[in-house]
């Protein structure tokens, strides 16, 4: 990431728009020079066309010869060539500038997004805000590009054209130049309508997509419940609303552009009338026919340009709005935080875990209701602890408590240190977690396990009994798993996630129902492998299937916010619900395929 170091090293301030321009000064210099040449050079076109027409008149009148025309024509072609070459340079570099800015902004935003906590992302809506901000970057960079382009294309060019018009006949120039601003003002007035209808259209289009996705993904459910006809009517209504919004939004966009051009072209009436008088010798100035055509074509080009001026202001306005939204989020904190993390020595071992009077309730629940309370136990390395209980008893919550996403009551001490008081990086080095959701990435099996580290994927796959199936896949461990692992079955995804967790082994591992989709034999095998590997770790295994529980060092039974803790044998005799559940499953196991 050479580029990245670069911009962090200087006094680059991610929340200053000027910084982005400054960082790209080389590219911008190329843009400036070529932009000036191009736009001033644009005058050459009409000027030469005028001269050529004049020359033709002279030749027809016998006052000039073929070679006069030849020189003129050659000069014209060469001038056009130079001007257009500058145009090429300008366009290419303006876009490169926009690309660089876009990439930088996204790097900064993503860097801070990926370091946000889960609560910030899910509950405070930071996730949504950041996602939108990343989309805003496109608008913002596009606006900066248009701004840079149009400073030359519209700004410089308009001034040059105006100067030329004024030089030929200032009175006529002023009269004819009255009209393009009128068209601009009209466009400005219409902008409000365009924006309003545009927003409404976007909204309807979102509604329609959502409805389509719902209809497609829940098709069977709707059919089974006989709701298809009613859903179709609902969809039809959404289609009508969408049609209305789309027509409104697009009509203003497409219909008005030709009309603005008509308004700004009103000036030609005066140009032809008074310009004609100039040529005939009874006007404000004395013109030849060349001056007449140059003036006219200059004006035409000017009015086309000025109809684009409205677009320029729109783009800049949009960029401003986007920038305002993303500015507060632009903080390039990422690298310092990482560097610090790499230097410090981290705890990566555990001897003893002591949980004392642990309780937990979500912060925003009325009456401060607790999900569980008063849990105390000790564990040491090498132990596997089973956690179970009826549905919604809080067993998953108990597992998540170790992540310290919310404050807990009581204490969790790792070799005497309170877990909640460690900093986030220390904690991440200490606690590994695998939840219900396998959280796989849309990447290969190999990358999903390694996530950039080095390890032997085959060994890991064997350990979770996934090696055979992976070998049968078309690209083996390099097979893509699809978004969120959709191309894998539930059991495959679970084993892959487990392999990943084992690959990034932590002293304390919380595994929430990692075997729910596995058959009994595989479950046992994976469990045995886990056991043989867990000499230095403490494993919490949360499950509602109890086959493996007799082999565990300790069992926590959670019910109605209270915990019963002991060995399997102790709980069998002490907790009748546990015993019944265990025996039920044991009986049922014979029936399972």
């Amino acid at each position, binding site marked *: 990431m050479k580029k990245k170091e670069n911009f962090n090293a200087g006094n680059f301030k991610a929340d200053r728009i000027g910084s982005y321009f400054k960082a790209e000064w080389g590219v911008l210099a190329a843009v400036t020079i070529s932009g000036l040449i191009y736009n001033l050079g644009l005058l050459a076109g009409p000027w030469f066309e005028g001269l050529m027409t004049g020359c033709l008149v002279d030749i027809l009148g016998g006052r000039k010869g073929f070679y006069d025309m030849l020189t003129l024509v050659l000069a014209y072609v060469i001038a056009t060539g130079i001007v257009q070459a500058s145009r090429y340079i300008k366009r290419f570099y303006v876009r490169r500038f926009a690309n660089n800015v876009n990439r930088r902004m996204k790097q900064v935003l993503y860097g801070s997004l990926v370091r946000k906590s889960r609560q910030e992302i899910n509950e405070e809506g930071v996730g949504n805000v950041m996602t939108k901000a990343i989309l805003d970057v496109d608008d913002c960079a596009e606006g900066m590009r248009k701004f840079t382009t149009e400073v030359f294309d519209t700004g410089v060019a308009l001034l040059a054209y105006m100067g030329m018009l004024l030089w030929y006949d200032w009175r006529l120039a002023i009269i004819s130049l009255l009209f393009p601003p009128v068209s601009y003002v009209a466009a400005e007035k219409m902008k409000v309508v365009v924006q309003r209808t545009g927003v409404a259209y976007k909204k309807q289009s979102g509604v329609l997509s959502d409805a389509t996705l719902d209809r497609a993904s829940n098709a069977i459910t709707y059919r089974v419940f006989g709701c298809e*006809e009613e859903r*179709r009517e609902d969809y039809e209504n959404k289609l009508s609303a969408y*049609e209305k919004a789309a027509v409104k939004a697009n009509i203003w966009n497409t219909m008005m552009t030709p009309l603005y051009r*008509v308004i700004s072209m009103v000036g030609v009436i005066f140009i032809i009338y008074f310009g004609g008088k100039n040529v005939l010798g009874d006007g404000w100035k004395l013109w030849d026919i060349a001056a007449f055509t140059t003036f006219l074509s200059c004006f035409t080009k000017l009015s086309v340009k000025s109809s684009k001026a409205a677009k320029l202001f729109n783009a800049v306005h949009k960029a401003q709005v986007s920038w305002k939204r993303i500015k507060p989020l632009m903080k390039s904190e990422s690298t310092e935080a990482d560097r610090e993390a790499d230097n410090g020595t981290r705890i990566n071992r555990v001897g003893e875990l002591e949980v004392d009077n642990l309780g937990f309730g979500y912060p925003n629940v009325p009456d401060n209701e607790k999900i569980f309370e008063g849990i105390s136990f000790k564990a040491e390395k090498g132990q596997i602890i089973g956690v179970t209980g009826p549905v919604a008893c809080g067993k998953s919550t108990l597992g998540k408590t170790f992540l310290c996403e919310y404050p807990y009551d009581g204490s969790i001490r790792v070799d005497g240190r309170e877990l909640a008081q460690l900093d986030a990086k220390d904690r991440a080095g200490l606690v590994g977690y695998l939840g219900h959701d396998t*959280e796989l990435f849309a990447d290969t099996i190999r990358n999903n396990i390694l996530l950039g580290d080095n390890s032997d994927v085959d060994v890991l796959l064997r350990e979770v009994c996934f090696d055979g199936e992976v070998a049968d896949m078309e690209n083996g461990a390099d097979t893509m798993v699809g978004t969120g692992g959709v191309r894998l079955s539930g059991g495959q995804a679970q084993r892959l996630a487990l392999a990943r967790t084992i690959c990034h082994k932590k002293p304390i591992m919380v595994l929430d129902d990692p075997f729910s989709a596995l058959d009994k034999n595989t479950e046992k095998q994976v469990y045995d492998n886990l056991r043989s590997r867990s000499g230095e770790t403490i494993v919490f295994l949360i499950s509602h299937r109890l086959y493996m529980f007799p082999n565990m060092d300790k069992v926590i039974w959670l019910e109605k916010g209270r915990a019963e803790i002991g060995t399997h044998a102790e709980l069998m005799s002490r907790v009748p619900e546990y015993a019944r559940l265990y025996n039920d499953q044991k009986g049922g196991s014979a029936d399972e395929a």
Partner: protein
Amino acid sequence: MKLNTNENKNENKKSGYVGGIILHTAAGYGFLSAGIVIAVVGAVVLALLPPLILGDIVDMLTTGKNLPLHMVILYFAMLALTGIMESARERLLTVFGQKITHAVRSRLMEKLIKLPADELNHQEPGNLVSRFVGDVDTVENLFTSGIISMFADACKIISILVVIWVKNMGLAMVLLLLLPVLFLFTRYVQKNMLASQLENRKAVGRASGHVPETLHNIRTIHCLMKERYMEEKYDGYIGQSYRAMEKTNFYDAIYSPVILILNAVVVAVVMLLSASGNTSVLTFFGMSAGTAVAVINYISEIFSPVESLGMEIQTIQSALAGIKRINEFLALPEKKETERAYSAGTDRKNNLPVVELKDVTFGYDEHVVLDNVSFAVNKGEQATLSGRTGAGKSTIFKLLLGLYEPQGGSVLINGIPSVSIRNGERRHLFGYVEQSFHMVPGTVKDQITLFDESISDDEVRAAAALTGLDETIMKLENGYDTMCTPELFSQGQWQLLSIARAAAAEPELLLLDEITANLDAETEKTVLQALKRVSKDRTVLSISHRTMAETGRIIPIQSNK
């Protein structure tokens, strides 16, 4: 929409495809279609006039004649009229394009309803959405920026050529030679641009998919301390799109300069030849100053339609691909329409078993799943289908729900073939609890009613109370009107909600498909007992792998292997 009426059904099959829909819509909005034709032709013809008038004006000036005011006004009026015509064309096309997309989408939705269950299962939701949204949008583009503007541009090129032919035959010949070359060059550039744009879009897709993925997997990322890895990956994706974009930028930046230089060369050649003084050249290239002005005007006007022509071909190509995909979808086989939809309420025969399978044989493709299966479940009975994985238990449910038709024998609900039951009555007849809950976008209440307004709020609460969820729901911020997010309930609670959904319309028959997968035995028993308690005549048929969940009579299903 008029298109949904019955007359449509009677027309031959072809008219159901996109082409047919377009024709039908065009015919249905006669004035609109006629308006478009007038505006398109009008804009082309009117655009030809201003340069001609200008040429006359210049000629008058060179000969020293005074300009009549009406000429000046006429020049501007023609410019203005052209603008107005173009504006009208855009307006009408927008409306028409939207009418078409509306009609196509309606038709797609009708088709979705007619698909057999098997086909529905095969359709990936993401794919379907891109068919409904993306592909249909390309059809709209076909009109707004495809066929019609292509026609207009072609007319423009031809008419300018004709005028130039009359004014300066030599130039017309030069252009005739030049235009095909120019066109090929345009296509070359556009094809390359399209290729790198596609590449870019893919990379952009990967990069933008990376963000929600990060949000979703944030716990794992933090836990495994992979922030830096994720950043580098993201930057890698952006880098890919950046490189693709650089290529697009190159072609984009090179095209216009080349065209404009060419434009200048043509003007130069014409000027040079008309100044040559050679009489045989002059018969082709000779012209007055006024004509020269008009011709320069025309030349720059003939280049822009060539450029748009290239774009339009591209639009049409992608639209055709879109249409092809839509037509493929519309051509999918439909489920068989049963001759007559029975009402389970009025057509029912008394004293028959609620569920009855008689010698049912069924299989997917070649593989026979059920071979001569027969059993019956009487009113108020609780029964469990039991058998090994793959024995066809879930398949029996699908047959009962009318999703499939048996290949042999009959599947009867209250004595009526299950596929013939009227749609509107299904909900009151059976409640189906799937293995996993399918959340629909909406409130908690919507999850239970599935937007069926005939289910009252009291019934909703009653159904939730049955499953023991009422209390939990009332504790939510907006109670039953809380918008649902996947994080709102635990897995077990979602399953309970799924039961509430099935029970809300007070169905006679409950079908529970392996609901133990996500529930512990304790909760499952509570739920089944609650269901049983409330309605004595409710029949319950469930599937379970586990013996402990079996209640009532056990019906063994033999796997056919």
